[in-house]
């Protein structure tokens, strides 16, 4: 019962975030919305697994969390460098430390 309520709440939150993704106004807002949407998706997936009595599907939630990260980095590079090939920059001192 509580889980179903939780799922409903998450769906409502997802709907709101989708509205932000649609209206923008800047692309950063959209990415923010997608990112937040992704996290909520992860939660919803975990919840749904319990709701349907098959918690084994958590793997999908894990993979979402990971893919979400990769996509966000790609989007960020899109804005910052206009390239997918450049490495993420470091300032000089950090370069030395980072190796």
């Amino acid at each position: 019962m509580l889980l179903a309520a939780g799922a409903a709440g998450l769906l409502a939150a997802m709907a709101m975030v989708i509205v932000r993704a649609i209206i923008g106004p800047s692309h950063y807002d959209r990415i923010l919305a997608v990112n937040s949407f992704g996290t909520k998706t992860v939660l919803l997936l975990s919840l749904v697994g319990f709701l349907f009595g098959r918690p084994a599907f958590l793997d999908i939630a894990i993979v979402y969390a990971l893919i979400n990260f990769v996509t966000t980095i790609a989007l960020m590079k899109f804005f910052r460098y206009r390239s997918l090939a450049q490495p993420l920059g470091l300032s000089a001192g950090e370069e030395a430390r980072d190796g």
Partner: protein
Amino acid sequence: MDSVLSWIGGGFVVAGVALSLLGAIGVLRFPDFYTRIHAASITDTGGASLVLLGLCLIAGLTLTTLKLVFVWVFVMLTTPVAANALANAAFSSGHKPRIGTFQIVRTDERRKTPRGPDAP
């Protein structure tokens, strides 16, 4: 015992979802990008932690719990980093935060009045 735990777990889940919902309202209603990312990133991690903790309580000590811990670790690793990277990208590409006193302006007025740091 089992059912008590799962009720407590359910409570955590609902609390986490409530937090996520609050964050979503913030994402929808806050005035500019930087305030929105604030709303989103805090509640995402907080909400996720609560929900996953609640689910752990429901699941008991099984493989599922381990997976939930993994989900939590990944969410904790990725969401803040992504938010950081995004804010960094926005700021360094010159996306300006809106600075000034916050006030509620009716929609029809908003179009007319120019808004700046020292607008009335």
